[in-house]
């Protein structure tokens, strides 16, 4: 196998990535022992791990899942007859649910997702474009949130004091963010309409939305991961 085709296999398209996150969920219901769970999780890491680009980020995202799993394990242990096996099984189910997403989601690129949703799944063009543009503005959204919080803090309305104060402050920030982002969206729709979006009921797409071998591979892996716990059952 050449380096190039290896790289291609490592870059599946957006639809198979979404399938890779969702399809294995079906396997969760069949896990009914910790051992099955551990085998399943190992299979997930083996099957999908080679697609990971950003190891540190993936570990951080997975850590959130581990915390949730630990919480479930502890409560199962406490209320489920102090049975370690039961607790381990519950934890594995949660991890089986979230691990694929934490590995695959960061590979998803909004513009590619838009291309595929419109051309392959034939979702309405305008909705798809609006969604992609909104995802594109996500960083601006986060920056807006920070600036508004800074402004509120500098004006004596910042988030300190008790939980009630903080809640009220967050609500006010969220409202300001809503107003600011609606105005930003307004400016953006002015700019988009000026480029012909207003009258574009159907449009062409600059990039194709191909289904590649990498997509078939990932989809079949996802199906196998969904089936594995049922087979072990």
């Amino acid at each position, binding site marked *: 196998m050449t380096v190039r085709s290896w790289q291609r296999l490592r870059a599946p398209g957006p639809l198979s990535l979404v399938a890779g996150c969702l399809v294995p969920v079906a396997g969760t219901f069949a896990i009914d022992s910790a051992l099955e769970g551990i085998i399943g999780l190992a299979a997930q890491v083996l099957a999908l791990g080679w697609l990971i*680009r*950003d190891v*540190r*980020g993936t570990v*951080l995202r997975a850590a959130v899942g581990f915390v949730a799993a630990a919480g479930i394990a502890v409560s199962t242990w406490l209320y489920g007859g102090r049975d370690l096996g039961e607790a381990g099984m519950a934890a594995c189910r949660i991890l089986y649910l979230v691990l694929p997403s934490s590995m695959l989601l*960061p590979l998803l*690129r*909004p*513009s590619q997702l838009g291309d595929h949703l419109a051309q392959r799944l034939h979702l309405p063009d305008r909705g798809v*474009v609006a969604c*992609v*543009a909104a*995802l*594109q*503005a*996500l*960083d*601006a959204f*986060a920056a807006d949130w920070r*600036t*508004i919080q*800074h*402004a*509120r*803090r*500098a*004006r*004596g*309305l*910042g*988030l*300190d*004091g008790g939980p009630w104060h903080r809640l009220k402050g967050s609500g*006010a920030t969220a409202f*300001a963010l809503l*107003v*600011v982002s609606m*105005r*930003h969206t*307004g*400016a*953006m729709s*002015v*700019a*988009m*309409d*000026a*480029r*012909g*979006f*207003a*009258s*574009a009921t*159907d*449009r*062409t*797409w*600059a*990039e*194709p939305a191909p289904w590649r071998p990498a997509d078939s591979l990932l989809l079949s892996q996802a199906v196998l991961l969904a089936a594995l716990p049922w087979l072990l059952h």
Partner: protein
Amino acid sequence: MPSTRCLPVGKRPTIAARDPRTGGAHVAVEALGWQPLGRRTPVLHDLDLTIPAGQRVLLAGPSGAGKSTLLRALAGLLLTAGHGEVAGSVRIDGHDVNRRLGGTGLLLQDPLAGVVAETVGRDVAFGLENARVPRSEIWPRVHATLSAAQFPYPATHLTRALSGGETQRLVLAGNLVLDNGLLLLDEPTSMLDAVAANAVRGAIQREVRERGCTMVAVEHHLEPWVDFADRLLVIGRHGEVLADGVPAQILAEQGDALSAQGVWLPGLPAPRPVPVDATLVAPWVDGPQRLVTATGVRVELRSSLADRAAPPTVALAGVDVELRSGQALAVTGVSGAGKSTLVSVLAGLLRPTAGSVEADPALATRRGTRPWRWRSRDLTARLAWAPQSPEHGIVTATVRDEVLASARACGRDTARAEARAVGLLEVFGLDGLATVSPYHLSGGEQRRLIVAATLAHGPYGVLLDEPTVGQDRHTWGAVIGAISAARDAGAGVAVSTHDLMAADVLADDRTELAGGRVVR
């Protein structure tokens, strides 16, 4: 003959490709009026205007005169941008503009508002996709437009990695790829530093000249446009036409009158700062000499939410500055040099990654002397800050409440605070708008409001990010006058600015940043 090579036959003729030899679009405006929801007076009233094909019009006027509104009307986008009542008609090449959306290029003040895609190429392709240009033709046209615009990056470059000036040039390319006959410019360089502004202006003027399109440009500073424009149109505070004709002639004959209206004209000295009563802007009580000292400050910011693997940006590295009572510091430098970050650090809004930011012991609170540790109310009583984008700074529902918000939060005496607020609104020409929502003000008005809101409660330190953007000569004089008066009354002022005139008039001390370091 206008060519239609990019359109499938019989499809919407909304975006007609244009042969440069035939020149630009012809614009006819008749009895145009616009009254936005929530304002008692119309922004535009009974306006007539004819712009022959290929003419380059420079549109000027005082802050709040409805210049941006007129541009949106010409693009047929008044109702995309807001709610209100439209009267009259706008026709472009004989077609009602509301029936013929698109076909008009539009550059806005905020470059980010124009970006719709992840990569440079995809962004330029956006308009072509909307016009149903087949894929095989899209990419050649995208590449040709980018290279004609001398855009410095390939089509695969990420849009979020572009600077403000580069983004504006990208938006220009994305509009010109459609062979628009009319290009509308809404202060496209006002948020850029001098170097970037020059590059954007150069790109615009080259393209307009080569394509022969009709242009309407709103700019506060006319100087770089006067030789390029065929016509200068000045509108007044109520949307009335004050002057209309050949730029050089108008400037020679009516220069003084226009300048008195607040219009920025080339060759005139900086406006005189408006004298402002010290009791409106002085610190509430006298403070110490040294307010905040920053030593060896380094600030790293996370660069992208979407791409967590991206390394953090070093916004400041080893910067030493001091905020002193009775002194004004101007922080200058190109975009991305770290000006805003430095002002935010001094304002106690960002925690330095390394180095120290310490206030004078006389300002210490229960949480010590580091401003970023202070409780919000304690911070407000000591230091005030105005963000670069004023609308992010709005925290209340009326103009009057906005000016009083900080005074209320830190428990200032009501009568005195209200007297100061009323006085400041008058100085800034906002006294008639006291009960209006701050969101309904024009960009220039919002900025003055937020500056007033940083002064009314009398903090020791006043930290302002670009306080003069979008101001006419009068309101510029008022803003600079109020800041100078606060400084003279003992406040410590730091201003980050592209406006070198403001830095010259205001500053006792200057810090120039480049790449997060002090260069001068």
